[in-house]
């Protein structure tokens, strides 16, 4: 089933996508599905385990389900400090 998902890109993902946020129609069950289907947008060749994801401002695992209308935040490898 196709879902309307608002995706937010950060750091190198945002630079690659050329945009910080967009709403897309994707056939995705999980956060990982969203990440993979938007590969051409964020351009990441990082292993999924190096990146993080949040749904509606909550950090979740890549197997977390996504629902129509969710906001999915795609975080490249973090490097604070």
């Amino acid at each position: 089933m196709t879902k309307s998902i608002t995706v937010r890109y950060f750091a190198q993902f945002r630079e690659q996508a050329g945009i910080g946020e967009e709403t897309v129609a994707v056939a995705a069950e999980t956060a990982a599905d969203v990440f993979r289907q938007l590969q051409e947008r964020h351009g990441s060749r990082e292993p999924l385990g190096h990146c993080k994801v949040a749904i509606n401002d909550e950090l979740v695992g890549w197997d977390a389900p996504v629902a129509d209308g969710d906001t999915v935040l795609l975080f490249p490898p973090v490097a604070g400090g």
Partner: protein
Amino acid sequence: MMQIVETRIDPERLRDELLDAAAGAYTSFEGWIRNENEGQRVLRLEYEAYVPLAMSEGEQVIREAMERYPVLHARCVHRTGVLEIGDCAVWVGVSSAHRDAAFLACRYIIDKVKVRLPIWKKEHYADGHSGWVNCEQCAAHAHDD
């Protein structure tokens, strides 16, 4: 308490807020911008954070440290924006009755802050190039491979 700020971090003022008549030990950590990384000369760094989650995850890290170690106060402040060589990017301070807890909690907080908070940094090099810094944990995994 976790804070994300866009202006200069003031370690002296932060330290004073951790004073406590029951505290016998105080430990602080500061992350400074240095002029070199992996063999490249660095001119400045640009930090970006997703503030809502950096705040909540930072608070969670501090709570964990306080559950693990008997400390009185623990705080962390992370700065974002453009930072120059010598600037303080992150500060952690802990006060406790005895020093063991202060050292361990301080170390715990900075270790987790670096790998769990949605914060990124882009290095600008002397040769005109720039690049996003890889996460510590990813680098460690790569070494394990």
